[in-house]
């Protein structure tokens, strides 16, 4: 609660920190980290470098060190971070290349860092805008409008009388009765009944076509019951399943 009360917010405090504990032990503090541009801004700030004259070799090294560390710690490195790594390396190599150019051309040559700096500045601008929004919400949360007036819209049940309640209760009761009736209907074809009729037919006619038996069923539920009855009768009674041709009809036959 105390944290949400504070009015200003230092974004850099929240970002990552790499500190060297001992000779080959690195300690990593991961803050709320917002992508490669954030990391880059953080590294530039940590190096106390001028954003308009980024020491690209140094920053690239630091950046790659950080990515390696992320990999080492099994943090999946997002593609965006790798794209930025490639960009940094590209800029670094461009700046290392010997440039044989006349003075006239030099004036027109764009600094390989320029596009990146532009992107960093744009990003920083919106980071500051985000901070402004953060401060605004903090102020907004200290302001309260009047509580809602009770109206039919936000409190629809206020108009209900005892008779309304009774009506609703009767409806629920009626629904309940309907449900019970449906269940009784379902119970009409129980597995036991199905088994009995199946058994009777097999023992009377000595054999029964499965296809014909299944076709007599009207509902999915009946079909399922019939199927289970067939499985059951094969398991418990001396009844055999026979198929004369591949994919042909299956005959239930009394042994």
């Amino acid at each position, binding site marked *: *609660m105390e944290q*949400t*009360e504070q009015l200003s917010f230092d*974004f850099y405090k*929240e970002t990552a920190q790499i500190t060297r504990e001992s000779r080959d032990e690195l300690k990593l503090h991961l803050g*709320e980290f*917002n*992508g*490669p*541009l*954030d990391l880059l801004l953080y590294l530039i*700030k940590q190096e106390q470098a001028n*954003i308009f004259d980024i020491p690209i070799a140094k920053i690239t090294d630091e950046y790659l060190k950080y990515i390696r560390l992320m990999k080492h710690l099994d943090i999946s490195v*997002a593609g*965006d971070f790798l794209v*930025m790594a490639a960009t940094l390396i590209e800029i670094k190599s461009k700046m290392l290349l010997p440039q044989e150019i006349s003075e006239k051309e030099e004036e027109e040559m764009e600094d390989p860092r320029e596009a990146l700096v532009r*992107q960093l*500045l*744009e*990003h*920083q*601008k*919106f*980071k*500051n*805008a*985000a*901070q*402004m*929004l*953060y401060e*605004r*919400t*903090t*102020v*907004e*949360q*200290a*302001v*309260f*409008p*009047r509580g*809602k*007036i009770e109206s039919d819209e936000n409190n629809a049940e206020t108009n209900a009388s005892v008779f309304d309640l009774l009506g609703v209760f009767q409806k629920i009761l009626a629904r309940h009765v309907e449900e019970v009736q449906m269940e009784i209907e379902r119970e009409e074809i129980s597995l036991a009944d199905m088994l009995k009729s199946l058994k009777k037919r097999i023992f009377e006619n000595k054999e029964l076509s499965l296809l014909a038996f299944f076709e007599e069923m009207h509902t999915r539920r009946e079909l399922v019951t019939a199927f289970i009855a067939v499985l059951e009768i094969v398991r418990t009674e001396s009844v055999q399943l026979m198929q004369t041709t591949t994919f042909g009809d299956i005959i239930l036959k009394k042994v």
Partner: protein
Amino acid sequence: MPKTKNHFMEVEEKQTRSISEIVSIVEALVFVSDDPVTVKIIADVLEEDRETVEAAVEELKQEYETREGGLQLREIAGGWQLVTRTEYHEEIRKFLKTRPSAKLSLAALETLAVIAYKQPVTVPEILDIRGVQSASAIKTLLDKKLITAKGRKETVGRPMMYGTSKDFLLQFGLKDLSELPSIEDFEDLVQGM
């Protein structure tokens, strides 16, 4: 002829309404309204012209400021609203037994800042500025109704464009989008880093 008589009475009533009476009615209407109430709505209800109502609202605002009480009248999201003064938020929270609602994440705030200043803006354009995918932040903002879809951009892939909503103005205490400080104002801070 009752109709003519009624009309006559209305005209008479309108003529007799003093400015202080209008100020009082405005106060009553703003008080009962759940949402910020616009000058136009008040003007329609009172059958007064906009200028008169605007003057009354300003007068009322001044009254609240001079009084330095627990309430303030403020302009927000194109309307007027009566709210408590920020100074007393601790006592109010204690009384209501509420805590401040969870704040947006940094990623969501940044995405919202880009959308607020660049609207209507597409997802690829947001990616360009933030340098990172913003899909989950955009979903959060849509869920909280701070942004809305504003049609598609007629370019490759016809990406969806987003802009801020009325809820955005309400939650950030803004009269309208022009009240946002200019994005160029944030440049000075950049140079200073």
